[in-house]
């Protein structure tokens, strides 16, 4: 058990989500930044997909009821065990009765806290993730909650106990994207704009998606698209031309043409950008020019 003494910001339990139920309208959900979730789990000897805590731009204090290995990844936050400063991106031993405190991160948006054994709240459709769109999974974690932890993996402690990693935010170069299923709704000029313009993350972004503001990506085709299945990382473009990129809690279908799809690791990086941060995209892979646009038969 781990007692949650104090929380500010959105704190949810997240694993790698519940794929496989899209035909019933169930979103995949899961950690917004999967790279950081996996890393945190590896540092404490868990399976990469174990459930951990995702804290969005807030502070957190927890107390262990028994000796627990913990690790902090994602948006870098100052951390203390009792009054002793401790580093992120490494295994930390939290003895029974000791408290771990996280400050608000200085850059980035989402900090992950994994504990050995994983957060063992009940599964819903094979996942412990909170889906903020549908309400599936546990309610967001509040101060006063006691989080059950699973049994730590048997065997020796994890082989990796520290990572060195540059901060995985937007300042690390443009985010790689592939042409999406409806890139043929857009002209070659728009593809050039997408690859060169800078976009700003707006404040109406959340676990469902990141809304961007910048140079309009204007469609060359009019008319309505029948809603169709979308994926995490899909960049859909409404008539305003301002793109929106889906994150983990995206609806299963979207009604606007998907111009491009971020690589999974790029979606993780986007999920770490704050409102006001700038982001650029780089088209990679086949079909970068309009001549061989998608739609092969």
């Amino acid at each position, binding site marked *: 058990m781990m007692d949650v003494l104090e929380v500010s910001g959105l704190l949810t339990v997240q694993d790698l989500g519940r794929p496989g139920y899209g035909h*019933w309208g169930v979103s995949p959900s899961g950690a917004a930044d999967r790279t950081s979730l996996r890393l945190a789990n590896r540092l404490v000897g868990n399976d990469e997909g174990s459930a951990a805590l995702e804290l969005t731009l807030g502070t957190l204090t927890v107390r262990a009821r028994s000796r627990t290995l913990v690790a902090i990844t994602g948006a870098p936050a100052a951390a203390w065990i009792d009054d002793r400063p401790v580093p992120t991106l490494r295994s930390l031993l939290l003895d029974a009765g000791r408290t771990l405190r996280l400050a608000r991160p200085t850059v980035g948006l989402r900090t992950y806290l994994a504990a050995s054994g994983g957060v063992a709240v009940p599964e819903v459709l094979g996942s412990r993730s909170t889906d903020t769109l549908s309400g599936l999974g546990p309610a967001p974690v509040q101060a006063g909650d006691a989080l059950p932890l699973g049994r730590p993996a048997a065997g020796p402690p994890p082989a990796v106990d520290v990572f060195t990693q540059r901060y995985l935010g937007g300042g690390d170069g443009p985010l790689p994207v592939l042409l999406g*299923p409806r890139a043929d709704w857009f002209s070659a000029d728009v593809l050039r704009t997408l690859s060169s313009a800078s976009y700003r993350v707006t404040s109406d972004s959340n676990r469902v998606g990141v809304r961007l503001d910048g140079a309009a990506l204007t469609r060359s085709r009019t008319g309505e698209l029948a809603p169709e299945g979308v994926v995490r990382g899909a960049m859909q473009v409404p008539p305003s031309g301002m793109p929106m990129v889906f994150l983990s809690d995206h609806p299963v279908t979207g009604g606007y043409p998907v111009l491009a799809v971020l690589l999974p690791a790029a979606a993780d990086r986007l999920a770490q950008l704050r409102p006001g941060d700038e982001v650029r995209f780089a088209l990679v892979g086949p079909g970068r020019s309009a001549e061989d646009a998608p739609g092969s038969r």
Partner: protein
Amino acid sequence: MTSGVIIRPCGLEAVLLEVEDRGQVLDRYEALSAHAPAGVRDVVPSQVAILVSFDPAVTTLEAVVAWIGAVPAVTSSRAAAAAVQIAVTYDGEDLAAVAAAAGMTSEEVVRAHTAAEFRVAFCGFTPGFAYLSGLPVELQLPRRSTPRTRVPAGSVAIASEFSAVYPQASPGGWHLLGRADVRMWDLDREVPGLLSPGDTVRFIASPP
């Protein structure tokens, strides 16, 4: 490549199949979902397309595209499946307004809604919300200009070319014809979703 289908790219972990004859989407969906190989995570139909997502640690884009091409367009297994019957008390707030807009009496609206054979085209909006195609043309109306902030669970409603039963209370802009005492979505059930894409559905009028 398999005929009548356009394979569209959708990132490193999915492809989108656009089905040229939208009448074939559900047959293709059923054939694909019945024979999904290891590594295929989700097969999600919509009106004109089917999204197939996969785990790249288990399979590859090439293998998934080859599998899609090899699956027959039509499955023979579902033909015998019985329609799901849903009893409805037709006392919805919008019944009279729908009747007026359609130039019918309320009784005629109920007769048309209960005479139709619906089919689940796809699910979305909220878990278990099934978009039922087969709504008679005379009942096809645009959504309400002002959505309701709360539509109760079990509400039987129509909008555009679809009918639906709200699985949980939610905001909604559809026209309410009545209510059904049925759990469309129940996580305590072995199969939470009452309806899956391809299922056929009939509504039966209950006495008010």
